[in-house]
């Protein structure tokens, strides 16, 4: 590795290095007005007015997906996401109907956004494709429990929203769910051939 020798006595004009540096900064200063953003021009993002391009599998905070209506989410309150979450910031309680028989729906599903570490483990381990990582980052709040503890109704978002933010993944998941439903409906149909309508919606 040859090291540039800049010892004082060897270099007749002492200031050349500094002048060269200033030339670089001057060139950048002029470039910033004429060049395009990624060639060396100004590439500041004017935040409130202009938002940064967020890539497709960017992940920030989890949210729940529902198909038809908010009160019938895909989530079946199995609690696997709560068990695998490294910081245990998810709290799920299964709903019970009046007779005490557990319904496969969450009565309470709250995530403490002030504790979540955006790691995406809940999305990986969810067997019912119900929890995914959103990309909303404008969640600054002033009160810790009211603004950071997000309840079920704030978490639930329609499947259309999920298809909008992650088209490729949403398409694969929808295809897989449709195939599973078709197979279940096919399995149910031979058992009761008369009502040919079948349950597959």
């Amino acid at each position, binding site marked *: 590795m040859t090291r540039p020798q800049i010892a004082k006595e060897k270099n007749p004009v002492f200031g050349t290095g500094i002048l060269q540096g200033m030339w670089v900064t001057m060139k950048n200063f002029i470039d910033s007005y004429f060049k395009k953003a990624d060639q060396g021009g100004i590439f500041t993002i004017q935040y409130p007015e202009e938002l940064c391009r967020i890539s497709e599998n960017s992940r920030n905070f989890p949210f729940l997906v529902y198909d038809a209506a908010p009160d019938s989410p895909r989530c079946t309150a199995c609690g696997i996401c709560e068990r695998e979450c*490294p910081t245990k910031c998810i709290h799920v309680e299964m709903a019970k109907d009046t007779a005490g028989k557990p319904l496969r729906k969450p009565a309470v599903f709250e995530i403490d956004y002030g504790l979540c570490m955006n790691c995406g483990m809940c999305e990986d381990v969810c067997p019912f494709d119900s929890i995914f990582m959103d990309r909303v980052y404008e969640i600054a709040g002033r009160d810790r429990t009211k603004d950071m503890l997000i309840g079920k109704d704030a978490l639930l978002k329609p499947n259309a929203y999920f298809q909008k933010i992650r088209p490729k993944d949403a398409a694969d998941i929808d295809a897989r769910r449709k195939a599973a439903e078709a197979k279940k409906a096919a399995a149910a149909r031979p058992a009761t051939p008369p009502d040919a309508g079948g349950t597959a919606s």
Partner: protein
Amino acid sequence: MNHIENKSRIDPELRDEMAKQNIFITSLDFIYNWGRRSSVWPMQFGLACCAIEMIAAAAARYDIARFGAELFRASPRQADLMIVAGTVTKKMTPNVVRLYNQMAEPKYVLAMGACAISGGPFIDGYNVLRGIDRFIPVDVYVPGCPPRPEALLYGLMELQKKIDSQTFTKAEWYQKGLKREFPVPELGPNGLIPKFNPEIWQPREQDARKTRYGQTVLTGKKQKAPRLEPVAVPPPPAA
């Protein structure tokens, strides 16, 4: 900035009408808050990963200078805002609280990142404070681990809204006998003495995480240690 509403008691149509003739009617509060809001000087105070994201927010792409906050003052005396960016450990808490006490009024605290809000990923650590709001009052919480630079800018705008909502007639830093010096905790045998300041923070009544997993989430007492040498493997005959 459309979110800044001018709360002077003059009816808005008259004010807009006169604004067209370049006559601006405003209230002293608006000017006072506009000045304070547009030059919030944060303190150069980075603890961990969120500090790197704060530097990225202060750099060229997400420019915090557009909010007037690019001058990171090294000393707490000249700073208005303390951005607690990173994990506050029990060993670091006395320093953080002393820095807060040394800041000049009016002072604000922005808890950036899950660690400063609630201990974040390291909440179960024996040396991690579960959120800086146990010892100093926090004005804005910015969740995320680390929050994106835009999330920090959004948090700064949230703080600017809070500054706007204050009027200097009722501002607490002009009242006599203002007591915003919080006691600096000490390092005791097992952690901090005191564990939290009850005046500022009380534990939540029903804390789902604590009832289900206990105060610290540990896997449990493992009774059997692993035996690394192959058990009952006949020693090879040839040495």
